[in-house]
């Protein structure tokens, strides 16, 4: 489509003209050159970020190797840098966030694309966009003063009473509730990634061809059966992509998490009520203390790990989205 639209432009500008005025020709190609050169800056920047982080982390990478990722002892005084508790905290909180946010986001996206009356769609979509635009410091503020007291006062004791008698699950609710823990961080993250997942899922659902729905409905299926058997299977890779992008956002969130997670590098524990660190909150809390070269290098390596994980998820998500916009094999209309 875009190729077709673009072709007349090509003809006019690049086509053979017998009497080109030299000055104009120079300005035209000069402009293109400048624009192209500036467009290379994002590329250079991305390469620069990876290269500089690698360079500065090399001391820690060489010295600790894979122990950096596997050891659970983070002790700057004795120059022991094992980031396993931070990695665990990041994965744990992000998974809580995804488990809480995905069903709600998907449900809301389905409501918006399949049920909502036309007049409601735009205002709701705008609200979601706004929710995505709220700075993370404000979520942190809200988490600190509103969510944490509620969780500590009523939700967490309730969870404890409910789950403690069940043998294996009880490990999730061990320990006292102090209002700074993985669960609260996970819930705040869930609220933050909800609009991310919702807006992508909505776009993906809108890409499902209308004829697919109509075909199903004309066979006598109810609206829910249409969703279940046509819309969701068609959109599945895209929904997976939305989850990945939500997860990537959760992994990198810093301030909101820092304010409610407690920031103590405790042992790795499966309890939701453990105060801990994520990679991002560890960086934010410790960068001012990094006086020694190896400490500095270890913190840069934390950022590098975060970057690589986030990039991998972004790339995967984009591949999946590209697949949805092509549609499943044989389903194209």
């Amino acid at each position, binding site marked *: 489509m*875009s190729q077709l639209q673009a072709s*007349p*432009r090509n003809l006019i*500008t690049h086509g053979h003209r017998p009497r080109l005025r030299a000055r*104009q020709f120079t*300005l*035209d190609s000069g*402009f*293109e050159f*400048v*624009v192209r050169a*500036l*467009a290379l*800056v*994002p*590329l250079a*920047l991305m390469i620069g*970020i990876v290269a*500089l*982080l690698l360079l500065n982390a090399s001391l820690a990478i060489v010295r600790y190797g894979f122990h950096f990722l596997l050891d659970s002892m983070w002790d700057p005084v004795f120059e022991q840098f094992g980031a396993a508790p931070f990695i665990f905290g990041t994965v744990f909180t992000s998974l809580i966030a995804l488990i809480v946010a995905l069903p709600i986001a998907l*449900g*809301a996206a*389905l*409501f918006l694309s*399949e*049920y*909502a009356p036309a007049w409601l769609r735009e205002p*709701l979509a705008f609200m*979601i*966009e*706004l*929710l995505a*635009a*709220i700075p*993370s*410091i*404000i979520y942190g*503020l*809200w988490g600190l003063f509103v969510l944490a007291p509620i969780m500590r006062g009523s939700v967490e004791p309730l969870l404890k009473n409910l789950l403690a008698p069940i043998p294996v699950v009880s490990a999730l609710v061990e320990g006292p509730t102090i209002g700074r823990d993985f669960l609260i961080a996970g819930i705040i993250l869930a*609220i933050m990634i*909800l609009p991310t997942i919702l807006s992508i899922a909505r776009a993906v659902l809108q890409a499902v061809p209308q004829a697919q729905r109509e075909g199903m409905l004309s066979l006598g299926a*109810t*609206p829910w059966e249409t*969703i279940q*058997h046509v819309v969701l299977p068609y959109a599945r890779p895209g929904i997976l992509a939305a989850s990945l992008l939500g997860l*990537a956002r959760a992994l*990198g969130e*810093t*301030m909101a998490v820092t*304010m409610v997670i407690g920031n103590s590098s405790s042992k790795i524990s499966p309890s939701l009520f453990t105060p801990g660190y994520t990679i*991002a909150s560890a*960086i*934010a809390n410790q960068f001012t203390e990094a006086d020694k070269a190896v400490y500095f290098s270890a913190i840069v390596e*934390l950022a590098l790990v*975060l*970057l690589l994980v*986030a*990039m991998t998820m*972004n790339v995967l998500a*984009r591949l999946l989205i590209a697949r949805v916009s092509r549609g499943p094999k044989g389903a194209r209309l």
Partner: protein
Amino acid sequence: MNTSLSQASLSRRMLINGAMTLLLTLCALLAASVLLAILVYVTIQGLPALNLAFFTERPLPYGEVGGGVAPALLGTLTMLGVAGLIGVPLGIATAIYLAEYGRGMLASLIRFVVDLLAGVPSIVVGVFVWAWLVRQVVGNFSGLAGAVALAILVIPIVTRTTEELIRLVPDSLREASYALGTRRWRTILFVVLPTARAGIVTGTVLALARAGGETAPLLLTTLGNQFFNLDLRQPMAALPLQIYSYAVSPYEDWHTKAWGGALLLIAVIGAFSLLTRVFSARGK
């Protein structure tokens, strides 16, 4: 699939349909009510903090009456200004390249990299600028480093918004311009960009406003300051950093000021989100 459809009785299927409709509606209500809860709470808590002193005074030590976020406002605006000077031309130029010239491998690569850049966690951008400018080039925390970090965050957003808006400009306008003998560069600068101007301006300001709400990268680069400072080589105050330091303090009065700052941030971002939406709706 076929068997499940034919075997279930119609009333049962209608019941399931009704239940799921209700459930999906509840999900949407829940998502919307979370936003409302946050907005209402920030407004109620933040309004009492907004007085003249809040906008004009510097943060005072605890116990002194008054005090505000003026250095933070000044610092945020200064750093955003510099970030805009660096990031906006780069973003718009990249968008022009992608929308008007970009074809083939290089364009796909750049588009891919812009998407990647948008997905880099903001704390990582902070660490990058910290390791580079703060520790190696300048030697201390500085407003300049903060501005560079914000510029890096702004570039991908400006590029995406601008590219989208340039693509909305009808080809007939370009063709009309070419038909009058106008060259391509003039057409882009004086026909295409002005047509998309309103959207590009609001989109850019929204990108800057969002960057202005970033806390983690600023913490690592400019650190914060309790005093007025316009020297880019020195640490600068910033609104999100001020909110953070007020929020983690033990004082009730400072908490109110944190909410006031939060309200200010949300109001600015909300206003520009609305404007951007109006312009892109008009474009379509």
